[in-house]
């Protein structure tokens, strides 16, 4: 594996739970890998299969979607919809020959800052083990600015 390889991970997270946890992780000075690029959404129910495929096309090595805990969604069932869509998208990327492990759904409550740090560590470790995405063309081409908010 290329020693210089630093995984680029896109995280689509909801404002009500996981983003709050991520914010708290910052306030608590929790350390976790800087490989994750966070996009805050009102709810993970907004996440579409097309967004997930677009992230891989843009060169993401891994994508994580993280919403509220089951039963705790601010919009009642947005996180459940995201869970189903992520499961479907995993099948779609497996069909084309990309490892489905590059995509994962998490449920992290607003007060669970340590769990957010652990989730990012886990995905970063997994992305390192899997190696760079075969769809990642070059540093310049990977993850264009308009594709994700850093």
């Amino acid at each position, binding site marked *: 594996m290329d020693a210089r390889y630093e995984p680029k991970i896109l995280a689509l997270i909801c404002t009500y739970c996981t983003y709050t946890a991520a914010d708290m992780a910052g306030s608590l000075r929790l350390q976790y890998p800087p490989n994750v690029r966070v996009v805050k959404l009102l709810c993970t129910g907004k996440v579409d*299969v*097309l967004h997930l*495929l*677009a992230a*891989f*096309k843009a060169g993401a090595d891994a994508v994580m979607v993280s919403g509220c805990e089951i039963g705790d969604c601010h919009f009642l069932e947005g996180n459940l919809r995201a869970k189903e869509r992520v499961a479907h998208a995993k099948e*779609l*990327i497996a*069909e*084309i*020959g*990309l490892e489905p492990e590059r995509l994962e759904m998490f449920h992290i409550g607003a007060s669970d800052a340590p769990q957010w740090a652990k989730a990012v560590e886990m995905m970063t470790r997994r992305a390192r083990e899997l190696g760079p995405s*075969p*769809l990642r063309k070059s540093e310049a081409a990977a993850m264009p600015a308009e594709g994700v908010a850093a």
Partner: protein
Amino acid sequence: MIVAERKPFAEIAQAVSGYRRVLVVGCGTCVAVCLAGGEKEAGILAAQLDLAGQLAGRDQRFATACVERQCDREFLAELDAAAREHDALLSLACGAGVQFLAERHPSLPVLAGLNTTFIGVNQDVGVWDERCRACRDCLLSLTGGVCPLTMCPKGMVNGPCGGAVDGRCETDPERDCAWTVIHARLSASDRLANLEALVPPRDHSRASLPGRQTHAAYLRRYSSHG
């Protein structure tokens, strides 16, 4: 509604592998409702093919378009300009739509992305059940609104075969005997006398040719169509 399902990805990828610029054409009516070939599904399939092409190192471009219905010329006309810009069209319509699109672009390869499965109903989110075989000789007024051709595996039209056990079909104990359901339905609506009617043998010669029908209001205008 016509129900269809997407073909296996490998089969579609193989079909488009020889073309550089492919237009994935969705259909916004039946197959959009059954989540097989609408605008969203066209977008997802194009994205998948795009990624698969990149992984295989092929120089391929996939664009998407979606028309209201591929079984109507007025909607297909919207695609004419875009079609000319592509090497192949991948239609996500039912079999009728694919054929109509191919008829309009005889010099372009028109490929099918779906398998058309049946005429059916929406049972639940993402679940469809077959209800009609398009037999051209509807018996539903007689049979209490239950189609024996569709719901009975033997297609019995003049009563049950005698193989049912406790109201279940002998071919599959999980399914109701169509004629038990018909009897219950007719009984509930006080129409059991319907069972005395004899349905004559079917004229299959009518089904051996592609059908055509002309609405009575247009017969004069299109008299040459018969």
